[in-house]
């Protein structure tokens, strides 16, 4: 293990050590300082990840800082850092104390950073489950709200079942190919066992990506979890799950027998997610259903099995991260002692808190896929790759459901700007929140208008 190896896995070290440090030093430091430390670790990991050249040679067994990792690690780090920035003020107001929160976030971030670096199934699975573990804790961390614990229980039980499926799938792949290398997943000599393994993995991932019918936990967990956690969960964890599949697939298309299951998952998720969100009056549940639908789009791109499709998945991951972080961040920043849950509670907020509401509105417009936001660019890429990959029927269904989805996103905007205020205006936002919101909003706009550089980089990410 040379210095170069150490340097190449520096993001992992930074986040991992950061998590430990936060946990150890937490009792002795001021609360703000703890968050600062966590943010610093996350930022450093992200910057390092973005700047350090990627290579395929494993730094340590099972880990290599691949181009995919170089693309995803900064995204995860941004998600983690923004989450921390949102959380500070939020946790203050909601009396979520203790250093275990930033430590767990950093731990989750660490696991996320490991995932794209994985070179074998074992690391991959462990990373995936570690992420889940972090979120089991984070979701249930708000002891003042009964929903938080309830959501944690549901997530944990459901997650454990799903993890069992994934693990069984991996074990079958191992049984079929005799190897735990990533390439083993594409070794179809033993077709029956391999398909069964892939089917199991698919089901497990359907849970992670909240694809129908593994989606049922999503609304409950989003609602129950603290808003920043829900934001982190909906972005980091989902992108990681998508990356899990991409790592297994490389640049190869999914086996042809998987086409129908993937098709069904995508179709059901897009339609059900968008429709169920239509009249949802709880904003976080609405975002949960929207999440389901968006993961349906993602699956649509994946389904095509083309480089374009995979690139679209990766781009969409980044864009979706920006959009959802902006949305949940705004929700967190607008919350007082309690979160604004119902839509009505956002009435008139557009004028009492113009910046935060503006970011929320922007996020909604982006989620609806309206240009010139990144959401449009992402959807465009997805539907482009779908049409190019021959999935025209599904693309049309998806696009119609996306059009319908504009309704519930706009409902939020309607409440923000077009209805008289019903609740007390929110407190002023902290600088950290403002900065984080500004960052995510800027990302939405910049990726929406100038996606070229990112797109070109994506071309090099896929092996």
């Amino acid at each position, binding site marked *: 293990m040379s210095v170069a190896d150490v340097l190449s896995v520096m993001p992992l070290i930074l986040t991992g050590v950061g998590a430990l440090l936060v946990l150890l030093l937490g009792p002795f430091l001021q609360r703000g300082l703890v968050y600062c430390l966590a943010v610093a670790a996350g930022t450093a990991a992200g910057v390092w990840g973005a700047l350090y050249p990627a290579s395929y040679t494993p730094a340590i067994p099972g880990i290599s800082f691949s181009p995919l990792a170089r693309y995803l690690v900064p995204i995860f780090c941004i998600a983690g850092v923004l989450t921390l920035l949102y959380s500070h003020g939020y946790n203050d107001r909601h009396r979520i104390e203790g250093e275990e929160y930033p430590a767990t976030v950093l731990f989750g971030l660490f696991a996320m950073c490991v995932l794209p670096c994985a070179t074998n199934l074992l690391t991959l699975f462990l990373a995936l489950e570690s992420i889940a573990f972090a979120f089991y804790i984070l979701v249930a961390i708000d002891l003042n709200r009964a929903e938080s614990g309830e959501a944690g229980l549901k997530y944990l*039980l459901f997650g454990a079942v799903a993890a069992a499926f994934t693990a069984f799938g991996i074990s079958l792949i191992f049984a079929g190919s005799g190897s735990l290398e990533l390439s083993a997943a594409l070794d179809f000599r033993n077709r029956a066992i391999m398909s069964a393994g892939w089917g199991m993995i698919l089901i497990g991932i359907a849970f992670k990506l909240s694809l129908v*019918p593994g989606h049922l936990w999503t609304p409950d967990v989003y609602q129950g979890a603290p808003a920043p956690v829900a934001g982190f969960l909906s972005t980091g964890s989902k992108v990681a799950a998508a990356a899990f599949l991409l790592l297994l697939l490389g640049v190869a298309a999914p086996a042809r027998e998987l086409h129908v299951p993937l098709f069904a998952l995508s179709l059901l998720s897009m339609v059900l997610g968008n429709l169920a969100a239509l009249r949802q009056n709880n904003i976080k549940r609405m975002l949960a259903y929207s999440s389901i639908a968006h993961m349906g789009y993602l699956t649509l791109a994946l389904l095509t099995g083309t480089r374009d499709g995979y690139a679209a998945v990766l781009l969409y991951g980044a864009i979706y991260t920006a959009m959802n972080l902006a949305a949940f961040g705004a929700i967190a920043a607008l919350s007082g002692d309690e979160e604004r849950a119902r839509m009505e509670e956002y009435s008139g907020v557009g004028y009492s808190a113009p910046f935060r509401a503006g970011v929320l509105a922007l996020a909604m417009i982006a989620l609806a896929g309206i240009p010139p936001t990144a959401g449009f660019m992402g959807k465009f890429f997805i539907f482009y790759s779908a049409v190019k990959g021959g999935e025209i029927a599904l693309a049309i269904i998806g696009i119609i459901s996306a059009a319908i989805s504009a309704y519930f996103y706009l409902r939020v905007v309607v409440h923000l700007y077009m209805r008289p205020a019903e609740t007390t205006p929110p407190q002023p936002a902290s600088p950290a929140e403002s900065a984080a919101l500004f960052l995510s909003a800027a990302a939405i706009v910049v990726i929406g208008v100038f996606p070229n550089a990112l797109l070109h980089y994506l071309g090099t990410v896929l092996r």
Partner: protein
Amino acid sequence: MKLYLAIMLLLPLAGGLTSALAGRLLPRRLLEFLICATVWGGFVCAALAAASYTAPLTVNLAPWITAFDLGAPLSLYLDPLSLSLAVMVTFVCGLIHIYSVFYMAEEGDYPRFFALLNLFVFAMLTLLLAENLPLLYLGWEGVGFCSYLLIGFWYQDKANADAGRKAFITTRIGDTALVIGIAWLFQLFGTFSMVQLNGMAFLIPGGVVTAIGVLFLIGAMGKSAQVPLQVWLPDAMAGPTPVSAMIHAATMVTAGVYLLARMFPFFGGSAVVTSAIAVTGGITAFYGASCAVAQRDLKRVLAFSTISQIGYMMLGVGAGAITAATFHLLVHAFFKALLFLGAGCVITAMHHEQDIFKMGGLRRSLPVTFWCFLAGSACLAGIPLTGGFFSKDSIIGALWLKGVPLYQALYVLALITALLTSFYSFRLVYLVFGGETNAHIHGSRELKVMELVLVPLALLGLCGGVLDLPGYLGGGFLGHFFANLAGGKAAEAPQATEIVLQAIAGALALAGLAAAHVAFSGKARAKRIAEADNPSALTSFLFHAWHFDDLYRLLFIRPYAALSGFLWQRMDEGVIDDSLDRLAQGVGATGTWFGRWTAGRISLYIVSFAAGGAAILGYLAWVTLS
């Protein structure tokens, strides 16, 4: 020449715009002077143009609509037809403008009135002088628009505004046919120039000529108040009397006749079209006369007589006697303007009472009006040697000379109508001016001036015959002037025939006079007045103008309004929009139903998940193992 024509058009336009935009800022006298001056200026231009006229010519003023091979420039065409009508229009309108100044002396909203009056003259001259059909249509609609607003000038009374609306919409129905005709012509020939089109009819099948001719005829029906589009004209009398005189008697309503005369070379070759025109004219002439017999409102009598007289002009066109039709048009303009203006004097004097059964004895209190009105009635009735006699007779004669059964039948109809015309003309005179006065007369300085305007018109009406004397009296000016027009040269009849025909017509006119005398002079007059309140069934039928209004209300207006509401509330909001709303509701409800799956119970979640997994695995097993 170009200058004359341009100024002739621009003066009234400028006057109208000035009055519309700055009328309130100018002193009233100045404005009044201005609007009269513009029209008289137009007359001077027309006269100068007539003086220097040598041969038909086209004048290009400016481009208007130009797109690819479509060209509709602002170009004017001067030929005997347009020239003579332009002179007449400017002259009659000039007189009526002067009359209006005094008639409307007490009106507060005078700038609007004068603006519309002047704009009307502009539009009418455009209509007459237009070289191409779109420009003609501009004038055509322009006069319709002015007429609409002038009928409803006293807009606060709903009836007036309704009358204006009725006129506008009814004529628009005809106009639409006209535009379709124009479009068709352009499709066939690629030009709008009437001069060019008139020489090209032979290029296309007769059936098409007929169809286009019928479309133009429908257009003319609307504007010239011919059956079945005549319903608007009687109501149009709601407007101020000078308006009725100028627009709804002398000028605008004859536009249809003008159009058909102008395009006659085009469809003159189609017997169907000419017959259709003639039949329309014949029926209308009879219809108008029959209704006029039973009217009680002074202006409505005149309105129906206008309908009837224009029917005669149509008959003339239908018989191919363009000269005769134009002759009658000109003379009619004089005497009908005269009658309306006389009626205006009467109405002013009678404090806006228009019921002829409530009038009487005015021959003493309004002697000038009486004599002029009498002259006008004589012309209308066609009493021998008046202008009306010669002009009407030349049309009736032309019918007979066609020598075709259809036209001979129309000849008989025209004679009956002539008898009726004479009867109702003098009925009117007897009722209004006969008997003894029973009302206080409102005399004023304005009334004196108004009466003065009647005199030149009366003279022109009486002596109008010299414009085109019959052959045995040395032939006429118009006949020569129009000789080069297609259809301008009327069939020359032997003088003996002509004299006989005129004798018959003259005798009938005198018979009508005699009948009116018997029925309405002296004691009989009082008896008729007493009877008037319980009219017979026939009188009532005629009084209600054959119930055309009721029929149309039943057939068109009510269903239109009902269907309009139906389309809006049942179709648009009920079916189309509601189905969308329902669809949206349905989609939303489906969503809520989907949402119910997330019931909050983890056991259900896991069962669903396991079921999904089983389905996928089952499918995979089925695919890989089969």
